[in-house]
């Protein structure tokens, strides 16, 4: 039972690391400001969810009221990030649109 919990925690932590790596590479490689927001907004949220899930599973392997309350608090962080990260991304897009930043096209690049 103990080793199963450890395997699940390792699986979720490595999965979150893969999602974070994908988001970071997307922020580097995308050609445009608006397309850069696509990995930044989604993959970071999913990476935080996966990594905190792994830490919660590891935290619950000696079950008591204290660790249960701690795990609920960790999931409150995930809940807050699920609300805040799309809002922050939308606000950055809105700032770009209002500042007159036009999207990237193939023809514009050749000029």
């Amino acid at each position, binding site marked *: 039972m103990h080793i199963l919990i450890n395997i699940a925690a390792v699986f979720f932590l490595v999965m979150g690391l893969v999602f974070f790596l994908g988001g970071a590479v997307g922020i580097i490689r995308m050609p445009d400001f608006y397309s850069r927001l696509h990995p930044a907004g989604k993959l970071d949220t999913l990476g935080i969810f996966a990594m905190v899930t792994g830490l919660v599973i590891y935290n619950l392997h000696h079950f008591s009221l204290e660790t249960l309350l701690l795990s609920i608090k960790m999931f409150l962080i995930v809940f*807050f990030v699920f609300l805040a990260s799309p809002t922050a991304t939308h606000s950055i897009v809105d700032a770009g649109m209002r500042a007159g930043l036009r999207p990237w096209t193939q023809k514009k690049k050749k000029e």
Partner: protein
Amino acid sequence: MTYFFSCIAVALCLIMVLPLYRCLFGPTVLDRLVGVNAIGSKTVVLLLLIGYLYGRVDMFVDIALAYAFLNFVAVLAASRYFHKRKGLYEESFME
């Protein structure tokens, strides 16, 4: 398991270098803001891992929550500040 947590923390620090490049050399101000937001969302998980390494998760959970909130407020305030700036489109071609 503590050794594994420290390995994950070091890997997370190495991943944070990639958005740091976007923060330093981003063509516009808003690209830098995207990089700062990505680094902040990784730092929340890093704080939880540091809590496991020190054995004080109950304290570091509060710090991580406060950090997530501060990151959100900072990005909102900066994007409200920069939306009045003109000439971002020309700036994005300077590279």
